[in-house]
C-alpha cells in the first residue's frame, strides 16, 4: 500500500515537473539547472538516515553520502544565488 502511495506521488510529480519547467525563458536556463541540481541533493535525507546503520562500513557509506550530498546542496544553492544576483534590469527604479 505504501509503495502504491509513493508511486502515486511519483506519477503526479512527473506532470507537475513538466508543467512547472515547461515555460522557462532561455536566459534562466543556467540558474534553473544549477538550482534544480541543488534540489537533487535532497538525497541528503537518505544519507543522514543511512548513518543510523550499525557497523563500520555502513557508517562509512553514510558519511560519504552525507558529505557528497552536502557539496551538492551547499554549492548548488550558493552558486545559483551568486548567478541570480548578477541578473539586473536596465530599467531605472
Amino acid at each position: 500500500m505504501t509503495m502504491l502511495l509513493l508511486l502515486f506521488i511519483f506519477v503526479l510529480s512527473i506532470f507537475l515537473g513538466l508543467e512547472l519547467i515547461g515555460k522557462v525563458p532561455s536566459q534562466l536556463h543556467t540558474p534553473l539547472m544549477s538550482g534544480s541540481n541543488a534540489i537533487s541533493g535532497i538525497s541528503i535525507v537518505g544519507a543522514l538516515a543511512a548513518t543510523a546503520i550499525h557497523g563500520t562500513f555502513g557508517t562509512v557509506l553514510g558519511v560519504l553520502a552525507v558529505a557528497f550530498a552536502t557539496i551538492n546542496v551547499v554549492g548548488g544553492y550558493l552558486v545559483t544565488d551568486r548567478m541570480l544576483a548578477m541578473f539586473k534590469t536596465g530599467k531605472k527604479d
Partner: protein
Amino acid sequence: MTTVINLAYIVSAILFIFGLQMLGRVESARRGNMISAVGMLLAIIATLLLGGLDYVWIIVGLVIGGAIGWWAAVAVKMTQMPEMVALFNGSGGLASMLVGWAEYIRDPNPGVVTSIAIFFAVLVGAVAFTGSIIAWAKLAERMAGKPILFKGQQPVNALIVGGALVLGIIFVITPSTAYPLLLVVIVLSLILGVLAVIPIGGADMPIVISLMNSYSGVAALAAGFVIGNNVLIVAGTLVGASGLILTQIMCKAMNRSLTNVLFSGFGSVTTAGTMKVEGEVKPITAEDAYYILEAASSVVFVPGYGMAVAQAQHAVKELADLLEQNGAEVRYVIHPVAGRMPGHMNVLLAEANVPYEQLVEPDDVNPTMEMVDVAVVIGANDVVNPAAREDETSPLYGMPIINVDHARTTFVLKRSMNPGFSGVDNPLFFKPNTRMLFGDAKTSISTLASEFKEAAAAA
C-alpha cells in the same frame, strides 16, 4: 514525532515546487532559489529529529561537504560555470548511489520494490557520477573535447547495459545472496558513465550537462523509493523532469535527436557539405570597423563560446555602452546552445552588468534582421552558419540559426579561418556583406572601444 517529520517533508516539497516555479521568472528567480533552499534546510532538520542517527559522523560529513561546496561556489569563475555544475551533478549522483548501497547494508533482504529501487539508484547514480566527471574533464580541458570513438563501442556499451540489467534482475529475485552482484553492478555502472560521455564532443556539452542533471534527479528519485520517502520522490522527479525538458530544448536547438547526440560522435568525421563555398574572405581593420559601427543605429552582438574563452564579456559591455551613447540600439542575440551549457552566455553577460532586457532570443531578431545595421559575431560559428538554412547536404542543415547574414553588415571576430566545432565550413565568411576582424576577440573589441573614446575625446 514521525508525523511531525512527515509533515515537515510535505512542507519542504511544497517549498521546492514554489521555488522552482519562481525560478522560471527573472524577477522572482533569486527569491525562488532561497525558498527552495529553505525547503532543503527544513528537510534536513526534520531528518535529524529521526533519532538513532550517528550525529558525530553527520557533523563531520556536513562540515566537510559544506566547506567544499561553499568554497567551490564562491571561488568559481562565471566562465567555469559549466564545469562546476557538472561536478555538482556528479556529487549528487554519487550521494544517491551511496544511499542505495548503504540501505542494502542495513537490510540485506529488502522487498522486491526496494531491490528494484536500490538497483536503479546505484545504476543511475553511478552513471551520473562518472558521466559528470568526464563532462567536467572535457569542459575543463583536462581531456580533449573531441569525441573518443573506438571500434565496437556501441556493442560494448550494449553489453554493459545488458549485463547490468541481467545482474539487476538476479539481484531483485535473490537480494540476500546477491551482494557481489550488486558490487559488479556498481562497477559496471561507473564504467558505463565514462563510456557514455567520451564519444560526445565538446560542443554537445549543453545536452550532456542537461542529461546528467536529469540523471542526478532520477537517482534521487530512486533513492526515495529505496528509503520510502516522499520528499525525495517529489524533489527527484521535479529535477529529473526539468533536466529532461532542458535536454529536449537543447536537442531542438541543434535540430538533432537525443540518440544522434549520444551515439553519433558528431564532429569526429568531417562530413562537409557538398555545396561549394564561393566568394572571398574580406578582412577588415579595427579602424574601418569603427567607422561602420559609428554610423550604425542598430547593432546586435552574437556571442558564442569564443567570447567565454577570450573572457571578452566585459569588453563587449564597454563597447555596447559606447555604442548606446552614440545613439545606437544594442541587443545581444543568444542562441540556446551558444556556449557549453544552457544559458551560459546569459550568465556571462549578466556578470558584465548587461541588463537582461537586452538579451534576446533568435526568434525575436531574425524576422527583422534586415533592419540591423551591424551584427557582431564574437566567437560563435555553427549557430550563425547559413548552411543550416541553405545547404541540404550540410550536417548542420535544419538547425535553427541566427540569420546574421541578413544584417546590412556582419563582423565576424575570429582568431583564424578554422571551421567551427562541427568541422563544417561556414559560408557566412564568404558572403559579400561579411567582414572578418581577425585576432583575439577581447583585443579587437577593446580596440574598437578605444576608437570610440578617442573620437569622443577629440570632439
